C-alpha cells in the first residue's frame, strides 16, 4: 500500500477503489451519502455500496428541463444539478427545536435528551459549487449566536469528498461565480474523474487530517505525470465549456439600483411563485418557525421547517404581507441571492450550480434576467446621457 510519506500528495485510485473508499468510510462510522439514480433523476441518498453510484448516467439540462441519459462511458460523476442538494442533510427540511410542558404557574422547557449527537455523514460526490454552497451556509447558519447550533454540530460531523468538475452541464456557470470547476479548499478528499476507453480511475488527494487518515488505507498508486496532466487540463478546460455565464463585477450596484426596473414585471408575468428555485438552491436557507401543542394542551413544541420568500405569508406584518405581488417576491429572491447577500453575509449567495434554471417549471434563467436588467440600465443611462 502506498503511504503519504513515501509518495507525492496526489494519487491514483481505480474506479473499483471507490468501493474501498466506501468501506473505509463505513468502517470509520460514517453513513455514506451520494448520488443515486432513482426513476427519473439522480438524487442524493444513502449509498449501501459504491456500486449504487450512477455509473454511466448523465443528464441533459435546459431551463425547466432535466432528463436522464445514458452516457457512452462509465463515468460515475458525469452529471449535475440534481433536484436536491447537500443542504437537506445539514439543514433539514423539518426539525424540532425544543419542547416544553405546562406547569402550575406556566411552563418548563423539556431537557434535551442530549444535545442531539448527529449521525456522522460522509458526502461522496460533492461538486465544487456545492462545496462553496455548504461554506456559504456555514456563514449564515454556523455562527450560532454564541452557542453551537444544531447546524454547527452536524457540520462538524461531516466528511466531504469533492469531485472536481470536468463536464459542466448546459445550465452551469460556476466559472462566472468563481466556485469551480476546480474545487477550492474545504474538502477532506478531492477526486478528479478520468475516463478513457481503456481506463476508469480517479486522481485523489487529501485536504485534511481526516481525509489523510482515510486515504492512507486506500489501495492507491502513485499518480503518473500523464494522468495528472490529463486530469488538470480536463478541469481547466471545463471552465471554458460552461453552459451559461453571468457578469458579476457590477452586480451588487446593478441590483441595488434595480428596484423600479421594468424587467421585474416581465419576469413576474412568467414566475409562478412556486418556490422550486428556493427548494433546489443549495444556499437558500430561510425557515419558518411553528409552535404546536397537543390536544391536552399540556405539551408544546417548536418546529422549524424550510420556508421560501415566495410564500405569500413570508413577509406577513400587521395584517398582510409586505411583499404581496409576484413582482416583489421575485425581485426579493433575485436581489437577495445576487445582491444583498453580499451586504448581509459578505459573499454572493449564488454558486452557479444552475439548479434554479433547471427546476423552474417555466424555465426562468437568472443569468438571462440579470443580463436583461443590465441591458435596461445601460439603455436608460444612454438615454440620460443623450438628453
Amino acid at each position, binding site marked *: 500500500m502506498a503511504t503519504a510519506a513515501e509518495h507525492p500528495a496526489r494519487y491514483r485510485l481505480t474506479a473499483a477503489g471507490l468501493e474501498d473508499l466506501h468501506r473505509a468510510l463505513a468502517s470509520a462510522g460514517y453513513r455514506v451519502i451520494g448520488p443515486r439514480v432513482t426513476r427519473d433523476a439522480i438524487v442524493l441518498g444513502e449509498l449501501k455500496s459504491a456500486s449504487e453510484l450512477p455509473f454511466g448516467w448523465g443528464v441533459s439540462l435546459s431551463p425547466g428541463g432535466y432528463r436522464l441519459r445514458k452516457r457512452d462511458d462509465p463515468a460515475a460523476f458525469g452529471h449535475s444539478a440534481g433536484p436536491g442538494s447537500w443542504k437537506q442533510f445539514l439543514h433539514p427540511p423539518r426539525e424540532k427545536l425544543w419542547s416544553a410542558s405546562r406547569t402550575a404557574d406556566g411552563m418548563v422547557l423539556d431537557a434535551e435528551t442530549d444535545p442531539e449527537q448527529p449521525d456522522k455523514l460522509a458526502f461522496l460526490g460533492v461538486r465544487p459549487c456545492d462545496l462553496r454552497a455548504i461554506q456559504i451556509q456555514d456563514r449564515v447558519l454556523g455562527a450560532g*449566536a454564541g452557542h453551537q447550533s444544531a447546524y454547527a454540530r452536524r457540520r462538524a460531523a461531516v466528511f466531504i469528498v469533492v469531485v472536481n468538475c470536468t463536464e459542466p452541464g448546459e445550465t452551469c456557470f460556476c466559472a462566472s461565480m468563481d466556485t469551480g470547476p476546480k474545487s477550492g479548499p474545504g474538502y477532506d478528499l478531492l477526486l478528479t474523474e478520468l475516463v478513457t476507453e481503456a481506463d476508469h480511475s480517479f486522481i485523489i488527494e487529501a485536504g485534511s487530517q481526516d481525509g489523510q487518515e482515510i486515504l492512507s488505507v486506500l489501495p492507491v498508486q502513485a499518480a503518473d505525470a500523464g494522468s495528472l496532466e490529463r486530469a488538470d487540463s480536463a478541469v481547466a478546460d471545463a471552465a471554458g465549456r460552461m453552459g451559461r455565464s453571468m457578469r458579476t463585477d457590477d452586480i451588487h450596484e446593478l441590483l441595488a439600483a434595480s428596484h423600479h426596473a421594468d424587467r421585474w414585471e416581465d419576469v413576474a408575468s412568467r414566475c409562478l411563485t412556486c418556490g422550486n428555485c428556493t427548494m433546489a438552491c443549495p444556499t437558500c436557507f430561510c425557515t419558518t*418557525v411553528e409552535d404546536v401543542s397537543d390536544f391536552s394542551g399540556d405539551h408544546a413544541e417548536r418546529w422549524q421547517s424550510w420556508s421560501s420568500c415566495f410564500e405569500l405569508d*413570508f413577509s406577513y406584518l400587521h395584517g398582510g404581507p409586505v411583499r404581496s405581488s409576484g413582482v416583489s417576491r421575485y425581485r426579493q429572491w433575485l436581489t437577495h441571492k445576487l445582491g444583498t447577500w453580499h451586504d*448581509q453575509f459578505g459573499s454572493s449567495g449564488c454558486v452557479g450550480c444552475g439548479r434554479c434554471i433547471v427546476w423552474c417549471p417555466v424555465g426562468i434563467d437568472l443569468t438571462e434576467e440579470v443580463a436583461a436588467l443590465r441591458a435596461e440600465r445601460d439603455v436608460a443611462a444612454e438615454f440620460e446621457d443623450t438628453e
Partner: protein
Amino acid sequence: MTDCRYPVRYRISSRVEETHDTVTLTLEPADDPIAAFRPGQFTMLYSFGVGEIPISVSGLPGGPSLTHTIRSVGAVSASLCAARPGQVIGVRGPFGTTWDDADAAGRDLLLVAGGIGLAPLRPALLSALAQPARYRRIILLAGARSPAELVFAAEYDQWRERGAEVGITVDKADASWPGQVGVVTQLIGRANLDPAGTTALICGPEVMMRITARALTGAGLPSPSVWISLERNMQCGIAECGHCQLGPLLLCRDGPVVNFGVAEPLIAVREL
C-alpha cells in the same frame, strides 16, 4: 450567557392596563436572566402553546427585571395581555440595535412617538432623564388616537418635573380633553427646534415615521440625525430565518433602530 434559541422562563410580577387594548407587564427571571438589554432592543415573548412575538422592551435598563408594553392585536398578543401576575412566560433575547447608536451627547434629544411607539422610546427617555447633564434639551412629542389610548399617561407630569419638555396631541377628542388635538407632526413647528443641534428618535407606525422623518428633514435636520425603529416579520431573532429582511438589512441584527439616512431609500420602495 443564555443561548438565544431557547426561551428563558420569566414570571410576571405586575400587570398594568394602559388602555383598553394595551397592557404593560413587568417580568422577573425565574431562571438565569437573559443578557442586559439596551434601549430600543426587543425580545421574543413566548406564550405557552400559543406562539412567540417580538416586543420592544419598554422599561429602564439595569437590573434583572424586564418591562414590556403589549397591544392585543392577535392570538399571541391577546394571550400575553390576558396573562396574570405569577404566570410564567418565555423570553428570548435581547435582540437588535439600540437607540444608543444615535449618540446625542451634548445635543438636543427629540423623541417623537406615535401610538404604542412610545413604548420602545420610553427606555431612551428614562435613560436620558437619568443623566440630563448629557443633553441640552430633552423633548418628547407624542401622538395617539384619542386621550383614552395614550400610554404611560400617568407619567407625563413626572417626566416634565424631571426636565423633559413633553408635548402630547391626539387625533380625536371631545371637550373633556384640555390638551392638543392634531397630528404629531404639527407639534414640530411649535417646538422651536435647532435643526443643526438636534438628534431625533422616531417610533410608531411606519407611515407615521416616514411622514415625521420627512417633516424633520424638511425643518432642516440632516437625515443622519434622525433614527427610526423598523419592524418586519420576525421569527428567529438571530439572523438565520430570513424573514426580517428589508433590502440589505436583517432587522433583527441591523435594526430595529436604523438611521434614517440608511432607511429612507429602503422604506420608499413599495413592497421591499
